[in-house]
Structures are given as C-alpha cells and as structure tokens.
C-alpha cells in the first residue's frame, strides 16, 4: 500500500488535538467566562447526578451535558474517546451480565449508572476543554488550593506539548532503527506487539532526558521567587487581581440552576425508577 500524508487519525493529529484541548483554542461560551464561574458551574453539574436515582432526571441532566459539550466545542479526539469508552462499557456490561447469570434487569440497572457517569463526564469535558492552563491555575489559587497544586497544573500544561513532541521524536527514532517484524502475522498481531513495545521503550530515554532538564527549571523557579511567594500573600493578590465575575457569568450560572431544577421538576412529574 502506498504511503500518503494523513491529517486525521495520525500521530500529528493526536498531538494537535491534545494542544487544542489543553489550550482551549476552539473558543466557545465557557472560554470567555470567569474561570471561577466555570468551576462552580462544573461543580453543580458534577454533583447533582449523584443525588437521584430517577431516570427522568438523569436523562435530563444527560441532555444538559450533551448541550454543554456542543456549546464548549469539544474536539473530535476527546469526544471520540468518550463515545468509544461509553460504547465499550455497554458492550462489556451486556456480556458480563449475561455470562454471570444476570438478565436484562441488571443490565438496565447498570445502564442507569452509565447515564450518571455520562452526564458527569460530559460536564467535565465541557469545563476543562474551555479552561486554558492560566485560568485553571488562577481559579484553583483563588479557591485557596495549595500553591504547589495550582502551579503544578499550569506547569503540567506547559510541559505537555514538549513531552508529546519528545515522545514522537523518540518513537520515530525507534521506528527508524529497530527492526520491524518481517510478516505482520494473524490480524497484524506481530506489528501491534512491535508498536506496543516501541511505545513502552520510548519512555526510558524520555525519563532520563526530562530528569536532566528539570534541574534547570527548579533552580530557575527558586531565583524567580516561587518559594518566596508561598510565604508572601502579596503575590497571590496581584496574580488574581484581573478576575471579575461579569453579568454573563451570573446569567450562565442562573440558567444552569433553573435547567437543573427543571430536570428535577420533570422527574417529579414523570418519575421513572429502576
């Protein structure tokens, strides 16, 4: 088969999708909101589903989640993984419940749990796809999360593209230099094993290289007052000075609360229990 340049479902594509997701480059409603409001919004949608067994309410919340995913412009990679994950979960549940002597009843009960998890997952996707590292770390800081956690979040985001790039480079090195199996084998199992092996082996040089690079980072943090800021509250105040709750934030939160209450009202009017 002749090789061609692929723009979708290639390593390059995964790299770009990760960056687009992490840095909220697609825009969407939640990216223009105050990050604290986004986190509160997320907290509402992530907690509420756990307080009910009413399928009508859960279905309503699931729909709310789906709408948020559309509004937040979640990318195809994350969404695809979610759908595949949910799909496999359902197939697995069917097989497991039938094998262990269950019946369709147990399956439906487990399906309700899936509905719950789905609603929460979609809210998470919508919220975290919309928060770039800066905003997320500042929001955490303003909620009095430990200094190290909020910095860790933003530093992790900064390292992500570099680590992905490094992984890609080292993996390519293995592709060029390690002998691939002569024959792909049944269902290409040899090739799959070979790729798995290269992926695992790639971590060895990456760990060593990163360990070496991070020494400079730690020294640089020290010289630029990172430790100092942990004992001096002025820095925190300056960093968070730009955060403002706007009418938009209030409107979005109010709408969400009304819709959630609406779901419960609907659930009370047409209850379905399993």
């Amino acid at each position, binding site marked *: 088969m002749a090789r061609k340049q692929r723009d979708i479902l290639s390593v390059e594509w995964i790299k770009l999708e990760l960056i687009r997701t992490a*840095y909220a480059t697609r825009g969407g409603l939640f990216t223009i909101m105050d990050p604290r409001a986004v986190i509160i919004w997320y907290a509402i949608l992530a907690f509420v589903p756990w307080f009910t067994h009413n399928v009508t309410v859960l279905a309503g919340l699931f729909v709310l989640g789906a709408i948020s995913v559309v509004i937040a412009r979640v990318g195809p990679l994350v969404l695809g993984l979610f759908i595949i994950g949910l799909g496999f979960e359902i197939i697995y549940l069917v097989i497991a419940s039938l094998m262990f002597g269950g019946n369709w009843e147990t399956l439906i009960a487990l399906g309700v749990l899936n509905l719950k998890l789905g609603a929460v997952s979609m809210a998470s996707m919508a919220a975290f796809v919309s928060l770039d590292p800066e905003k997320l770390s500042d929001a955490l800081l303003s909620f009095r999360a430990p200094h190290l956690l909020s910095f860790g979040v933003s530093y992790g985001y*900064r390292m992500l593209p570099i680590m992905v790039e*490094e992984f890609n480079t080292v993996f390519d*090195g293995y592709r060029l230099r*390690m*002998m*691939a199996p002569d024959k792909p084998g049944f269902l290409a199992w040899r090739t799959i094993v070979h790729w798995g092996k290269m992926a695992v082996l790639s971590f060895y040089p990456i760990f060593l290289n990163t360990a070496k690079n991070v020494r400079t980072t730690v020294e640089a943090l020290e010289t630029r*007052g990172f430790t100092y800021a942990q004992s*001096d509250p002025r820095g925190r105040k300056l960093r968070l000075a730009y955060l403002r709750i706007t009418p938009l934030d209030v409107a979005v939160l109010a709408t969400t609360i009304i819709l959630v209450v609406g779901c419960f009202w609907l659930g009370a009017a047409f209850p379905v229990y399993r």
Partner: protein
Amino acid sequence: MSPIIQVSDLSFRYPGAGADTLRNVNLTIERGDFVAVVGGNGSGKTTLCKTFNGLVPHYWAGDFAGEVIVDGVDTFESGVAELSAKVGYVYQDFMNQLVRPTVRDEVAFGPINFGHPDHAERVAEVMEQLDLEPLAGRFTWALSGGQAHTTALAAVLALRPEIVVVDEPVAELDPARAHEIYRSLQWLNEELGLTIITIEHHAEFIAQYTKSVVLMADGAPVWHLDIDEAVNRTGELAEHGIPAPQVVQVCSALGVERSPRDVDTAASLLTSRGLTAAPVEFAARPREARCVVAQTVDVHHGYKTVAGDVLPVLRGLNLELYAGDRIALVGGNGSGKTTLLKQFAGLSVPRSGEVVIDGVNTRSRPPGKLSEIAAYLYQHPQQMFLKDSIRNDVALFPSGRKFEGWEAIVDEVLRRVKLAEFADRDGRGLSGGQQRRATLAIGLAMRPKLLLLDEPTSSLDVSSRDDVTSTLADLAQVIECTVVATHDMHLVAEWANRVIVLEGGEVAADVDPRTLFTRPDLLTRARLVPPQVVMLGARLGMDPLPLSVDELVASLHAGANV
C-alpha cells in the same frame, strides 16, 4: 568605578564531591563592566557564577568558605530570593527556564511572585525594551530559540537586577541570532549601566563585545584582564580550549604584534602595513556529480497548524543529490531544512510530488526499511540515545537486522569516531562533542548511502566543533552522499562542496561555498554570518574569496612578494 562583586578567599565543594570545585577565588568585578568568564570544561565557571545569586551555597548546600559580597550584601547572610533582585541568571538551556504558558505571563512571573505593586509597568517596560510586545500572547513552548532566549532575558530583567549573568548564549542559537543577543546585552550594559557577565567559549564574540575577561582554570581565576590585553594572550587562551579568533590568527601568522578585536580593525591593521593580497590559485573542491543517489520531484509538503490550516513548508522542490556530494543545507528558521531531511529519511511522505532514494520511491516502503538506505540523525543527541550504553545504541540497528559480522562493524565504527573507551557509558553522561560523535557512530553503523544530519555542530565549543568537522570529512570514504542542515559557516567553508540555500521552502541558490560568500544578499536572507576570514578577505578586495586562514595568509604572502 566601584566594585559591584567582590569575592575573597572563596572555596566551595559540592556535597559528596571528592575535590573543591572552587579553590581560593579572589576576584573583583567593577560596576558597569561587561565580563566574559572563560575556561575549559570543569574549570568552575558556572559554579562561580552561581555564587553571585546565592544558588551556591543556599540552594546547592556544600562546603562554603570565604566571602562573596554582591552590591554590598554578603551572599552567605542573604538568600536566593533577595539576591535575585540584584542578580539575574539566564541559563545555557534557557528553554527549561521558561515555566509559564505564555510570554507575557513568563515575564510577569518574577515581579508578581515578589509582590511588586508596579509589576505591570515593569513587564511593559522590558517587553518594549526587548521588542517582545508582538510575542506577548504566544505560547512559550512554540517559540524559536532566539525568541525563547529573549523571553528568558526579559523575565530576568523584569526584576530590575544590577547584574545579569548569561551562560553560553551562543550555544543553542544560530550565529545571526547570537549576535543580536550580544547586541542587546551590549545595549543593556552601555545604556542602562547594567553589569553583564557571560560564560563564553567563542573568542570572536568575546573580542567583539566584552570589556574584560576572566580566565578560569582548576577552580580559580588565572587572571582578570582588560579585553585589549586579553586578546593578546592567544597562547594561554588556546591552551584552555579557546582558540584565537580567525582575524587574530591571520595577524599573528603575518607577524603583526597587535591583535585586532574585529574584522574592521584587522583590515585597517593589514592595509596600514601595506599588506595586499595577490590572486592565488585556491584548491578547488571537485564534485563528480554523475551518479544520482537521491532525488525530489516537485515535492510539496506542509504541516497542519493548531488553527487547522496547512502551513506550507516545502514548495515544489526539484533536487538531485549525487554520489560524492558533501551538501550543506542552509537557510533561516522555518525555511524547511529539517522537513526536507525528514522527507529524505522517509519519516514522512510529501503531500504531492515524489522522493526517490537510490531508485526507491519513499511511498513504497515504511521508514524502518528506508533507513537501510538513508540514515537521519537528530539535532539533539539526547534524543538518539535509546539504550543504556553507546555500544548498545550503535548496535541497535545492525544487530536487529542481523548484518553479517555486526559486532565487528560496531567496534570498527566506535574506533573510527574515537569513542571505543567510552563504549559502555550512557550517552547522556558524555561531553557535547563526544555526544555528537556518538550519534555519528549510530549513523555510520546503519551503513547508509545517504547520511542526513541536523545541525551536527550546534552548541559545541570550537575544538569539539573542529573534531566533528574532521570526522565528517573522514566519512567521504564510506558514505556516498552526506547532507548537513546547518547554520555553521565554518563547517560550510571547511567541509562542504555544494551549498543548497533554502528560502521559504524553495531553493534560493545551489552553489559551491566560495560562490555563496560572494552573494551578500543571499547571506542576509538566509540569516548567515560568514567566517571572519571570509569577511576579511572581502574587505581586502580579494577575488576569489579565501575560505580558511591558510588560504588568506598564503595570498597575503604572495602579495608581499610581488
């Protein structure tokens, strides 16, 4: 002038180390000086500079004796946080120094941490001084080398230090960019009165920009001299691994006592002595150009960007590489050099057009098979060290493919690059020059027809660079065709027999090295800085231009005999 740094009887030993890294250092640095700290590997340059901002002994706690006074503060009594307001530090691997996602946030990080209420003004001020405003919103991981270095410098300046230490700025940057960085340092020194300290290997930068030189050896300064005096100590500097700049070599070969600091001075020194060049027949660099090894046919390629559109990198390349070619691929950042190398290696295939290597279309084989014909070596040696020892790294390719007598091949290759005694060490622990030679060994053991190298001499000191250049010259016997993507004009002048200049993904010129240097327009567009000896030759009106010190000297000798 008053001293800003005063070091007396300083000794320091890292915890667990067997010997002192710094031994009885006595040194005074005046306010407003521009100091180059020079010396061989392990002479204690970096450790000395880390005593100025208190990283030694407060972060690196070891045996500390003596006294360091910085701007009136005893560093032992103070701390890193307080001293950082006085001393800024830009690291050699400055990329790892950037800790925030965007440029503006990076610059603001220090002032905000220290709770300066005027942080916004400070940030705006340095961003303007260093022309960073257009990059303010860019992600730090997406910056080019020069932009990242400027950002690191700005982040340090935002704390308004009196002293800035810059560790080997030239190492990771192309020459044109390195000159820009040095010019901003010079501006900070002259206009704002900051004291600048650089750790530097390259004599031409030292001679051109600094005001004084500290030579370190075995953990203590040998001397601290004014630059005019320091450039005349060429013998001593060369002993400590800093060969004299080419203009100084030319002058001393001709018996001129005064050492010039730059090309202009050298030219006027020589003309004032009545030395003129006579045309001399320079040795030609022959190319056979008969048998095609690799070929591109109307190759177009590009990458998807985060925004979703395709950024074109190569635009319709038609090239033929012949057996016997030693090609230097030059051009500015983003001109497509690395992309073209990766196309030849078959790591990716073109969006349109064909790449054919040794009769094989790259579309027809996976990269693992193509690497048997074309070997690609990355720019950063670290990324090529996949195994726990050099020997295993070199053996990975030939042993996996069960080459006949692969053990012998590995031994032979290691011997050829002079690394036999380090064969069982992890590559990461070697010096810069050894690392590059180790990657060359990896490439050689693949026994390719086409060897592709990405910046093999970047971030090397002068003597390791010469080592790599001569190893490359040796390879001509075993490799049919070598392509080197590079900014290093010394490599071009001394090694290449064909130069391909890329600009915006197109071939701007395909010439021999001597012709390249006669085209100033090309040099500027491709961000190239010719070696000093070429510029001096041009200044003296030579035609053809000399490519080495020997050629220039020979031609001046011939002129003197007329």
